[in-house]
């Protein structure tokens, strides 16, 4: 089909442009828009019919008029050019350079929507990644190919934690570092700069591709940004055999942009005004992570999701939790006590931990140590609640022991330095040190062999 240009705009509102009488336009195709000032904008067909075509304008519909807006249908999907040159570069959500360097030239171009990975072609992720952070390695282990989001709130140090993970993450007994794809949606200039400086100072910048849409950039562009970033990640992982760590921040702004467009389209809202397809839409992004048979590379994903008013039941963290393989939850309470990283272990979870730890992967006692620490901490939190009601002095000796354990756990196990890279052995040894304040017969989740080997108590 020849490339046609139309000037039949009938409506322009909220990032959407309606074109009349544009036959034969394919659903999902890329569109170029020229406004009255001659400025170029990008768009995508999101509803196609003989009489009327609906276009999503990534740069927004501000300052468009209906009379002098020219639209050209490009007869190609929204694509990104891919080459090893991507590394070290900065792009916007459409894959256009944002670092004053020339665009990527390559004959490898791929549509950003991607296709679903055949479940029969996947390999189950099971290689333990050591992040050097005790609450993650010890209790919520990350494995290669997992999607493990950080649930956070405004003002909490999720960015510092994400940066620390990027800096420290590596396979146990292996020295290959990760390539990083960094996708920022609607973040502030300061946050974007923080990551850039972090990557620069830790010397990984050559290994990072950044896709950035700042808080004052057009929100519609946030809808393609994670897809563009993941297309780049797939290329690095499956064409160039690299292990890729994708950090996406902040998924909440992505979902808000989706809601904005959905509302403009008139989609039926489900919860809190978010469209009913929010789950499927988020899944299209998150599920692109994983491991594939016979492919050397992998995609591990760490999205940052800020919980509006710290509410974990808000649709965005809620639906994310249903798709991802666990979550790391940050707590304002711990943060206020000056504990870094303020990981609240009770609601945190790693679903893929079970196959990545134990005898051959970390240490034989690891699964039971994690279960026992969780049980003790749950009990300790109950005791802490009780103490806040009746006063710590009223507690029995047994309960006081739990109280002391809770404090030591928060301070020493959860809390660690931002530059402190603990090995998994160090984490497990620390766990035993803390657990040894209990007599053996209270540690029923541990086996008798574990107790004999590692328990440091006298009885």
């Amino acid at each position, binding site marked *: 089909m020849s490339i046609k240009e139309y000037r039949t705009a009938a409506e322009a509102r909220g990032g959407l442009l309606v074109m009349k009488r544009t036959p*034969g336009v394919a659903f999902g195709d890329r569109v170029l828009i020229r406004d009255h000032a001659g400025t170029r904008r990008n768009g995508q067909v999101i509803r*196609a019919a003989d009489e009327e075509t609906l276009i999503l304008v990534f740069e927004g519909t501000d300052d468009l008029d209906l009379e002098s807006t020219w639209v050209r249908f490009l007869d190609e999907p929204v694509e990104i050019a891919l080459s090893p040159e991507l590394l070290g570069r900065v792009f916007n959500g459409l894959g256009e350079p944002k670092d004053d360097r020339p665009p990527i030239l390559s004959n490898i171009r791929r549509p950003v929507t991607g296709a679903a990975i055949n479940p*029969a072609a996947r390999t189950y992720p099971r290689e333990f990644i050591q992040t050097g952070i005790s609450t993650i390695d010890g209790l919520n282990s990350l494995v290669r190919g997992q999607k493990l989001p950080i649930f956070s709130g405004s003002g909490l140090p999720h960015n510092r934690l994400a940066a620390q993970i990027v800096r420290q993450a590596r396979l146990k007994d292996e020295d290959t570092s990760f390539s990083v794809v960094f996708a920022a949606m609607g973040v502030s200039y300061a946050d974007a700069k923080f990551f850039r400086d972090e990557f620069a100072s830790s010397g990984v910048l050559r290994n990072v591709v950044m896709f950035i849409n700042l808080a004052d950039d057009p929100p519609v562009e946030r809808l393609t940004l994670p897809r563009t970033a993941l297309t780049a990640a797939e290329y690095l992982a499956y064409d160039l055999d690299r292990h890729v760590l994708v950090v996406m921040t902040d998924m909440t702004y992505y979902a808000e942009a989706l809601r904005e467009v959905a509302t403009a389209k008139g989609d039926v809202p489900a919860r809190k005004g978010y469209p*009913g397809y929010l*789950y499927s839409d988020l899944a299209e992004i998150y599920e692109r992570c994983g491991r594939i048979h016979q492919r050397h590379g992998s995609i591990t994903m760490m999205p940052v999701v800020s919980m509006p008013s710290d509410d974990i039941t808000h*649709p965005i963290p809620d639906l994310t939790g249903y*798709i991802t393989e666990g979550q790391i939850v940050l707590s304002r309470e711990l943060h206020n006590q000056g504990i870094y990283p303020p990981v609240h272990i009770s609601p945190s979870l790693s679903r893929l931990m079970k196959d990545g730890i134990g005898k051959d992967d970390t240490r034989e006692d690891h699964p039971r140590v994690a279960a026992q620490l969780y049980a003790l901490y749950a009990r300790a939190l109950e005791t802490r609640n009780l103490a806040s009601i009746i006063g710590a002095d009223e507690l029995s000796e047994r309960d006081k022991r739990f109280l002391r354990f809770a404090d030591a756990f928060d301070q020493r196990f959860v809390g660690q330095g931002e530059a402190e890279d603990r090995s998994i052995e160090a984490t497990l040894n620390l766990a035993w040190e803390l657990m040894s304040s209990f007599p053996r017969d209270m540690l029923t989740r541990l086996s008798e062999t574990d107790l004999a080997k590692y328990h440091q108590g006298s009885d």
Partner: protein
Amino acid sequence: MSEPTRTGYIREINGPIVTIVLPGVRNGEQVRIGELGLFGEVISLRGQEAIVQTYESTDGVRPGEPATGLGWPLSVELGPGLLGGIFDGVQRPLEKIALQCGDYINRGLNIAALDRARIWEFEPNPQLEPGQKIGPGTVLGTVQETQTILHRILVPPTLSGELEEIAPAGDYDLEKTIGRLRDAQGHSHRLKLFHRWPVRKPRPYLRRDDGIAPLITGQRVIDSFFPQLKGGKGAVPGPFGAGKTVVQQQVARWSNADIVIYVGCGERGNELVDVLETFPQLDDPYSGRKLMERTLLVANTSNMPVVAREASVYVGITMAEYYRDMGYDVVMLADSTSRWAEALREVSGRLGQMPVEEGYPAYLASRLAAVYERAGRVETHGAGSGSVTLIGAVSPPGGDFSEPVTSHTKDIIETFWALSKELADARHYPSIDWVTSFSGHVHTAAEWWHKEISRDWERRRTEALALLARDAELSRIVNLVGPEALSSAQRWELEGAALIKEGVLQQSALDEVDTFCSPRKQFALLDLVIFIFKRGATLIELGVPVQELQQLPLMARARRCKSMFNSEQVDQIEALREEVGRVFEKMRLEYAKPDEAATNA
């Protein structure tokens, strides 16, 4: 089914909803859309226009491209070769797709579910003679599908008449004729090893029966506290991270069903891979063969097209009914029915239908009920009794059980395994909450337990639940005024409840021994902890301090018992019970002495 195909054209594309102009097309008919030939299904008609939901992404499709009606509704192929496979939401074999087009799923693929090249050894039914009257469900013969499953070849439900001929024993592929049948009109029909059946139509049976036997899952909190029956319907609701998937996978692994159909509906790809990679290695505790031989997977992961998600549940249940019709007990697990309901919502939203609750269409409740109603124990036409047990996971947004999908599901099902966030946060797994869960089958299950295991089953169960209820009550007091306010007897009750929780209810899916627990072992453990509690209570009355009992090494051993002894070592658990009896008796004598001394003097 042999009507000529008709061709029309596309008028509008709105995501998965495509409007086509195709006169004469029927509601529910399968259509192929566009140059790519994407699969779809007509869901409504208006004048010349038909609205189609497509099972594949419509990116790149243009108005004006052709649309072809296929003349039949969404159907599945039913025949040998299904078991051990993994299919997508419209029954395309994913392993074959991976071989043909690599790691990603291409569009417009037309691959038959069953392998046409595969040869099966057919053994005709010796009781059949040409001239005999045969009807729906008559067993024509058998094929050994896997080592454990004998696949009975049935006359399709739509045919009846006189058997003209039946093929001799031998090797046949799926397309070969294995018999002929002449119907009442005198038409002759070829019978093959497989037939097709429309998924939205329940397969017929002779009559419905009541469930009589519990489905043993090897999970203590399920079998001993909230039992499910073969042919029952149940739901597992829970917020994310509460362990729905693990509960479902444990049931898939250890239940005493003949066939397990696992429908991953809008869930994680890696979970299905987990099943695909581990089941071929795990042994079925009943037959000793590999679990994969009795398992069939339907996968529509969350990133696969949403409309096929709606279809996947019907595809799964139709295959379940097919094996039921052979006289098997089938368990179908749907993870998650919430995603299925969301697919309904998405389609209805795109059609501009009036939303009722949280955007869901008004027909949500009736569609849910219709799906669950396809479960049941039935008398089949030709193969005796068979059953389909349907267990659906529900993913309530924010863990709120009052939301539409959970509340409508709750009205339909009989067994409700409610997962609790609090229990999961404390790593109490399975996090099935004993307060909000229920089972409508306790009495039926009790008959089985009393006959097979022990007359005391129902009594022990009630005692345990009563103690747990008491524990909740006392915990409230403790939270207000502290444990010091409780009497020794009350503190011992707390200890007893803790013993039930840790020694019986908690069960590790990751522990090699504990992952499966036979009914005998389940009862022995329950009996042990109730025995400790009751005997302990009499000691407390005599003035034995709670602390002294708590510190007995026996108590830690009772808690570890579940993973120390396997299902064959029930005698060891009974031995421990006797030891407890001896130790407690000794303590009783010690503490009773001063009194005895007093009475003697």
